[in-house]
């Protein structure tokens, strides 16, 4: 590389193209079609010109393409600098650089750009599969980089891949040290592009008919929970999410400004401890079992026991929680809260209001009224379905009196309206219910499909209590999950099915993904501090971390140095001497020992006399050996002859001397 202007060999170009295609391919699904087309054209163009050794295109043409691309990106995304638009630009630039790449120096820049493009893939996915694929890509890039360095003879591509693999493998120990001990800072360092976390599905802070049931099709994981002791029964697993107070006749919404927690509840029974790992959902809420007993770091609890993180969850977050499954929350709520929990927009759902008034009149108490309403759901031909008929102006009326088929949000909404209409304060709690126990990793997986909505009502003596109207219609929903609750005809995607082996494979895979999330992706600055405490460094400063890192890195590097330089000291035994030594050892077992001072020729004569039946073989071996060691006309093939002859001799039975001795 004293000559970085060396012209690139088509072979180098080909391997570099392979690397670029590998890193750019996962982006294709997100790229606008014209970028993909342009990218493919650029790659084909470069491959073509490398293969036929053609001139590369002129600069002005490339500049024209750059300008056109910028315009196209602006039209597609409405911006140039952003996550998606930036990556699109980067990929096109990479393609153009390919067309400008004539020398080794350009090729090295391509290598570095390819490495950089690998990291952009992690913005979209950091799953195990992505990691494995990208590792392969890094491997191919590294092999291409190594390929540039052979100046005399190019070893085969497989051999280059092996060298690259060795070099990467040798980098792993130091990588682990740096990963664990490099002092972490909580990002972001600066504002992220606005589209940095687009396209994540999950709960929202409002609920209208159909908003929860659309989640049922999503197999995406919402969070995973590891319990300290036994996992509670499914019907106790109410994962509290956004609490909705305000109803406009169709939609329920959460208060814009949630009030911080101002009262305490009375725990009954023992607390239950667990650790939650929430997938990023770009909203602020965290999930906990009803009712949460503590607040995770950097989060607050609202007065309706909702956990809100200080910032939107754009990365996976892990926190320890404890909850009381039995509780009494009977502190007197503020008057404005009760007012809010009773508000109904006037003129909407009139038939429901009338029904509520009528049922209330015939009930002896509020408790009795609640039972009456639940009994109505149970007995009057209401059904639970993931594909409810559409509802229009007065959804609660339409649901209660005509369609009578709905998902949890229909029941929760109708129930809450009936409560409020009868003067019982009610609010809707959204979140998740149940979850799937992963028997492989012994933790609970809660998916988007487990999304649920239920109601909390306020009774004078009992305070806020949870009522789940869906359970009245479909007890199976809360007992054993949504998959068993819905009718056969509405079978969910196969993933929720019950083939034992499929289920087992899925659990194993999810368990693996969970470990990956916990150990690799969940290694945050917090976890790093925690680890430091575990090894006895209580308040790890930046400086002590760096010191520790350097010491560990030094040790690892020393070990690697010893390993790498070992090959300078070992010598491969001379195959000729080794073969002859085997020959001597074999003859010794046959009873002819070579004396220290005995030359090969003298030994040969003595051995032939001692073991005459082997004489031809002994003669051949000795002659070839003498020629190889002392002669001047030895051929490389002689080594093979010697080895073959020695092996043949060793293969021959040597019971003879013993028999002769016996005779």
């Amino acid at each position, binding site marked *: 590389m004293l000559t970085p202007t060396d012209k690139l060999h088509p072979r180098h170009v080909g391997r570099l193209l392979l690397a670029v295609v590998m890193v750019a391919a996962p982006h294709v699904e997100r790229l606008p079609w014209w970028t993909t087309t342009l990218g493919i054209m650029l790659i084909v163009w470069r491959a073509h010109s490398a293969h036929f050794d053609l001139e590369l295109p002129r600069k002005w043409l490339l500049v024209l393409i750059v300008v056109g691309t910028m315009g196209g990106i602006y039209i597609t995304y409405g911006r140039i600098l952003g996550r998606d638009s930036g990556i699109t630009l980067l990929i096109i630039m990479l393609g153009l650089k390919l067309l400008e790449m004539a020398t080794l120096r350009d090729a090295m820049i391509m290598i570095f750009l390819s490495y950089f493009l690998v990291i952009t893939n992690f913005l979209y996915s950091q799953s195990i599969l992505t990691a494995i694929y*990208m590792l392969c890509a890094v491997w191919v890039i590294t092999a291409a980089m190594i390929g*540039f*360095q052979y100046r005399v003879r190019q070893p085969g591509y497989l051999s280059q891949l092996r060298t690259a693999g060795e*070099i990467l493998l040798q980098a792993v120990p130091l990588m682990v040290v740096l990963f664990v001990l490099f002092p972490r800072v909580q990002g972001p360092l600066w504002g*992220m592009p606005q589209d*940095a976390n687009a396209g994540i599905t999950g709960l929202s802070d409002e609920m209208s008919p159909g908003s929860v049931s659309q989640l049922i099709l999503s197999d995406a994981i919402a969070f995973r929970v590891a319990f300290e002791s036994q996992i509670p029964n499914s019907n106790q697993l109410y994962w509290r999410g956004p609490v909705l107070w305000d109803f406009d006749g169709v939609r329920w919404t959460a208060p814009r400004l949630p009030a911080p927690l101002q009262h305490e509840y009375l725990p009954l029974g023992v607390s239950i401890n667990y650790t939650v790992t929430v997938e990023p959902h770009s909203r602020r809420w965290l999930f906990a079992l009803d009712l949460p007993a503590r607040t995770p770091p950097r989060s607050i609890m609202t007065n309706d026991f909702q956990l809100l993180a200080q910032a939107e969850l754009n*990365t996976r977050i892990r926190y320890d929680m404890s909850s009381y499954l039995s509780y009494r929350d009977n502190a007197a709520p503020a008057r404005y809260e009760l007012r809010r929990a009773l508000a109904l927009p006037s003129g909407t759902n009139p038939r429901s209001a009338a029904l509520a008034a009528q049922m209330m009149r015939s009930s002896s108490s509020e408790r009795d009224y609640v039972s009456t309403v639940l009994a109505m759901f149970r007995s009057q031909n209401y059904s639970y379905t993931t594909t409810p008929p559409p509802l229009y102006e007065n959804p609660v009326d339409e649901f209660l009196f005509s369609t009578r088929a709905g998902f949890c949000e229909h029941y929760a909404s109708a129930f809450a309206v009936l409560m409020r209409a009868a003067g019982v304060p009610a609010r809707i709690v959204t979140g998740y219910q149940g979850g799937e126990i992963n028997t492989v990793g012994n933790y609970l997986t809660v998916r988007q499909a487990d999304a649920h909505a239920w109601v909390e009502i306020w009774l004078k003596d009992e305070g806020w209590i949870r009522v789940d109207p869906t359970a009245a219609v479909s007890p199976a929903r809360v007992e054993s999950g949504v998959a068993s609750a819905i009718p056969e005809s509405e079978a969910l995607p196969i993933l929720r099915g019950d083939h034992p082996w499929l289920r087992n494979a899925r659990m194993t895979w999810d368990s693996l993904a969970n470990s990956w999330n916990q150990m690799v992706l969940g290694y945050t600055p917090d976890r790093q501090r925690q680890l430091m405490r575990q090894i006895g460094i209580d308040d790890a400063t930046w400086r002590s971390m760096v010191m520790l890192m350097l010491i560990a890195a030094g040790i690892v590097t020393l070990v690697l140095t010893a390993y790498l330089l070992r090959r*300078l000291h070992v010598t491969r035994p001379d195959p000729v001497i080794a073969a002859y030594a085997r020959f001597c050892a074999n003859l010794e077992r046959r009873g002819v020992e070579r004396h220290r001072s005995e030359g090969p020729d003298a030994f040969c004569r003595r051995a032939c006399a001692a073991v005459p039946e082997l004489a031809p073989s002994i003669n051949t071996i000795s002659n070839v050996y003498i020629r190889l060691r002392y002669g001047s006309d030895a051929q490389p093939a002689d080594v093979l002859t010697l080895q073959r002859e020695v092996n043949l001799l060793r293969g021959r039975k040597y019971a003879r001397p013993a028999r002769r001795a016996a005779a």
Partner: protein
Amino acid sequence: MLTALKNHLNTWLFRLGEPESGSIVLVQRRIFILPSRHGVLFVCALLLMLTGAINYNLNLGFVLTFLLTAMGVNSILHTFRNLSKLRISPERTQPVFAGVDAQFPLTFEGAGTLDRYSVGITRDKKTVIYADVPAGQSSTVTVDIPALQRGLLRPGRVTLFTYYPIGLCYAWAYINPEVTCLVYPRPEPGVIPLPLPDEQQGQDSALGLGNDDFAGLRSYHPGDSPRHIAWKAAARGQGLLTKQFIGLADRQLWLDWTATPETLGIEDRLSRLTRWICDAHAAGITFGLRIPGLTLPPASGSAQRDRCLEALALFQGDSENNAHADR
């Protein structure tokens, strides 16, 4: 002053002392290593990637950045290892005439079971030769150095370097092997008639070509006069052949320093003698050489030619007076 200091530092740091005789083994002390230009660029790319990983909380970004960092760090060892314990043995050199390239064959041999690739050899950082040194084998590389003037030519400081395996580090070592190449004076171009044999020396008259009898053809040797080349044969595609003449072969020819015109400088006079030696040898003539301070009795054959040319190559030309005194 600064230059002197720099030279001193260079001498101390890089051990640029006297030439070393025999084989040179690149021990640790002799190998230097620095990041290459691409290595610096790589570090910049890593910093960028690290910033991205921190900003977007990408743990796999950290994994990748640190993997590449570790690879870069380890490549220092790999690159160093590619030169370490390399044994360089200078081979015998063949004398050359001034004006052509002297060839210094260097044999490389690695230690251990390590295949070494792309070891570069250069004197001036412009022309580079690369060699692979597979484990247990040796490979010979010839360093060409233009032989500008007669005498003993030393290769001087030769740089061995490598970027292998990933080009991010540059490892190098300087060697200064004690090996010389004998450089004969440049044969005077053109047709210079040989001096007359025996007593006629000292006179400028020479044997005309017409007096010789054409004796036959033999293959061309460097130094043969272009006039004696059988161009017709060459045109027939028979390769370069030199015409041989008899007539002088049986007589003793003294090639004498004094037979060359004094008006020429020492080097030119040596060039002329060189030309004569080549021509006389080519013609198969028995000849002797007389130069100030040295007389080589007449003989023939390539041994005589080499002996005479060596004497001319090593002639102490600074003593112009010698030449006159010897007359």
